[in-house]
């Protein structure tokens, strides 16, 4: 119940905010009515998803996954593009973003794979097959290109490895190339990276072959990184650069962040009052009803509003984690963990972006941002969590 209440409260807050953000004359005026309709649909979807026993999802995991991969391929071939990226499928009046479905399908399939009596993630095939399952949608979404969304997949994978019982040492070792790359990026020195790898290798107490493989993987990443960087779209590089050095790309991302910070900051403790925000007023805040809706919360309702939203999200996530712990079956437990990790990633990345602490990735704020597919996808996620909640007392 707390889960559902928190979600409903966030959707209602979102509707109010979308109304406010689109209340001024301009192209987006009146979008709140459509958002209201979408909220209704999302609620119905959540209801249906929660109603069907999760055993059905378990059984359908592979077909669901394959269909969603097919749709991701389709979007690359026939999708409509916006800002140089193909992310949408046009279905008459509807836009459909297959990556949203892929996230859920991947979680379900991983939950099925990891739900085994004698699962030993230290063995090669169990962890490697999961990696492959995640790699396919990750690569397809990254190709669209949608960097922010594609990163959801590795986040899900790591969370579910962890929840399925992978030893921490192994997890860190597997992630070491990522740390390594980040460290190299930040310090620019090879010694730090070498040191990190040495410490991890020493601490992990793995078999020699594994250690050598990890070492090779690290070296491989070192070689691949510059090439990957060259392969990236200009705007992707720009976003990463903007994040690492806010002085870069000042025209768009930089400007958005500054405007967003001004909006949130100027809200102060109590905010300017509902519908009284001035930043959104003259359309100084681009994407104010979608990716930057949190800035409108900050401007109009101040710290009170933002902290309320953060607390509601925290409730949602903590409740989801609790469900993962008390779920009746291994599948349900893993399902909850996967869904929560995706939600948590989106929430953190979006909010930290609006306050300028994370790159501008184009990820919407779950349950609040304007956008039909995203809202329905959130509905599915909440429905799945609720599904686990309803059946936690089952025998």
């Amino acid at each position, binding site marked *: 119940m707390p889960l559902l209440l928190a979600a409903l409260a966030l959707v209602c807050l979102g509707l109010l905010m979308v109304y406010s953000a689109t209340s001024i004359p301009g192209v987006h005026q009146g979008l709140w009515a459509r958002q209201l309709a979408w909220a209704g649909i999302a609620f119905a979807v959540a209801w249906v998803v929660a109603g069907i026993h999760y055993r059905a999802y378990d059984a359908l995991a592979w077909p669901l996954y394959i269909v969603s991969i097919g749709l991701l391929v389709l979007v690359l071939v026939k999708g409509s593009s916006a800002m*140089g990226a193909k992310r949408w499928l046009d279905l008459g009046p509807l836009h459909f973003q297959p990556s949203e479905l892929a996230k859920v399908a991947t979680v379900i399939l991983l939950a099925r794979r990891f739900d085994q009596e004698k699962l030993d993630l230290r063995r090669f095939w169990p962890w490697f097959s999961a990696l492959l399952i995640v790699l396919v949608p990750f690569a397809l979404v990254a190709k669209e290109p949608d960097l922010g969304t594609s990163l959801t997949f590795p986040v899900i994978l790591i969370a579910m490895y962890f929840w399925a019982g992978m030893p921490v040492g192994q997890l860190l070792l597997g992630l070491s190339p990522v740390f390594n790359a980040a460290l190299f990026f930040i310090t620019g020195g090879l010694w730090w990276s070498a040191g990190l790898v040495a410490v991890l290798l020493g601490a992990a107490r793995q078999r020699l072959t594994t250690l050598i493989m990890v070492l090779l993987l690290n070296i491989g990443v070192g070689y691949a990184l510059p090439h990957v960087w060259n392969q990236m779209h200009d705007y992707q590089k720009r976003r990463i650069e903007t994040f690492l050095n806010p002085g870069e790309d000042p025209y768009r991302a930089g400007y958005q962040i*500054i*405007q967003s910070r001004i909006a*949130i900051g*100027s809200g*102060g*403790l109590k905010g300017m009052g509902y519908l009284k925000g001035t*930043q959104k007023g003259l359309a100084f805040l681009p994407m104010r009803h979608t990716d930057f809706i949190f800035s409108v919360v900050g401007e109009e309702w101040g710290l009170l509003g933002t902290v309320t939203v953060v*607390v509601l999200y925290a409730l949602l996530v903590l409740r989801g984690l609790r469900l*993962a712990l008390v779920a009746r079956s291994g599948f349900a437990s893993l399902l909850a963990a996967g869904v929560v990790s995706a939600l948590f990633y989106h929430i953190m990345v979006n909010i930290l972006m609006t306050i300028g602490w994370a790159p501008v990735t184009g990820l919407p704020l779950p349950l609040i941002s304007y956008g039909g597919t995203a809202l329905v996808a959130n509905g599915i996620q909440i429905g799945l969590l609720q599904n686990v909640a309803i059946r936690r007392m089952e025998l």
Partner: protein
Amino acid sequence: MLPSKTLRELRRQRHRLLVALTLAGFGLTVVGLLRLQVAEGQKYAKLAKGNRVRPEILRAPRGTIYDRNGELLVDSAPSFGIVFRPFPAESARRALETMSPVWLARVGALVELDSAEVRRRVNFANLTGQSAMLRHDAPFAVLARVEESRSELPGIEVQVEPLRHYPHGTLAAHLLGYAREISSSELDTLRDAGYVSGDLIGRTGVERSYENFLRGRDGVEYVVVNARGRRVSTLRESGARTPVPGLDLVLTLDLKVQRALEEVMADVRRGAAVVLDPRDGGILAMVSRPAYDPSEFSHGLTRARWKELSEGGANPLLDRSIQGVYPPGSTFKVVTMSAALARGVVRPGTRLAPCTGGLNYGGRRFGCWEHRGHGSLDLIEALQHSCDVYFYQVGLRLGLAGLEQPAKALGLGARTGVDLPQEARGLIPNAAYYDRHWGAGLWRSGLLLNLAIGQGELLLTPLQLALVTAEVASNGRPLRPHVVQRVRGAREFRPARPVQLGLPADPAIWQPVQEAMERAVAAGTGAAARVPGVRVGGKTGTAQNPHGEDHALFVCYAPVDSPRVAVAIVVENAGHGGSVCAPRAGEMMRRLFLPDSLQRRSARPALSDSARPAAPDSGVVDGD
């Protein structure tokens, strides 16, 4: 199934860890919000009061372009533009004024744009907070009117900006190209490459192909302004970026050669000329007629003038030297001869059936331009006198593929890869081409005869003509025509390698061709290109043109013993290459190779009256 007992125990631990992680994550956001909304809330409230922060773009000056000797060709000069600066939010009422039809109409009249366009740009400015450029390089009278009507036209201001400056006017206009303000549709696709509204972007010529070197990178600063739009301070935390100027280019172009070529081409209505350095493929000069003045674009063209330039019958924007394709006429005999020698189907001394003024083949008579006939000739004499009958027979010996492959090896029928945009391919037809056009088996080998003398479907650009000439001059070495020699500040920049394979550097191939070309100028069809004391090799051409008067062509190179220039000249609808183009090439080379005192004797009158034979003393009145 139910998780095992140990896993449940493990999860209980890990759950605690995850809860801690979640709390830490949300805690972090709360810390960020506290900082932003409480600790710095006052500061931001002040900024937001009028949304007084405005990104001000510091435009990077575009790179300068020099010729090979460091002579200035293109640079940037300061000018005054008219911009719209969006308002702080507190003056919302005034911002709405900018949307009123009266304001739009007045501003539109001032900057000579229609009010829909003004509205579009102003809207965009309000949306992004950036200034909108309304008019480049406004004349002083308009600037004065802007200053006068400041109070009635809120938001309209004067701004200094770099303007592209082409000091030599129409000189090498097509090669240099022009840069123009980026259009809104281009902005949609190029915004991620760092372009912003008001930036210049190269459209044609070097300005376009070297856009990424020339443009540099715009800088930005975030300016805090007061309610009247006046700058108060600059925002520090946002990290301003200083502009990075574009890189300067050093061309292979030689202003001296270019000037000479421009002058000899001055009276040409339609045509093109190219001078290559046969040692490295560098373009020394390039002219296309009719020409235009690229500065016109910097100052902003009126719609009517743009229409005139882009749609006018003569199409001045077309760079005929690389985009114009012409049947090469007899100049192609140079290629046929090289192919024949490379394939070994004739030798320099081979005498074929004597020319009686024509050749019967396949039930048709193929005529020679010399109706009286040339009699018995060897290969060298055949090129010297441009005998069609001899080359018909060479063509038959070569076959279609035997002609096509060496021509392609010399770089014909494909883009030369010159570093200029939108180069034409030209056409060297092969069997597949004829099958496609006429149907398999429906064409006869008689067309081979036409190809051998440069008529028929063959198409070459003037640049390709010059390229072939340069390759002959340098013994078949493949060359990559290029116009940029160096990029200052980009040491790794190198001109690209040739795309074509070239032909073997065997003197047995090239010496006869060179000798024949030299004889064609010394005592043959190209006599008008003679330069006292300098050995010149050349070949005239006249291309039949089904749409009107024949095109005149001439290719040559000099000095023969150590070639320094390879020239191709095409004049559309002008008649014979020997009388129209060769004198121009001769005049240009005399200017380059002779001291001033000797130039006087040059055939200046012949230029003004191109129909008159240029060198009556030679005894040869234009070949073919």
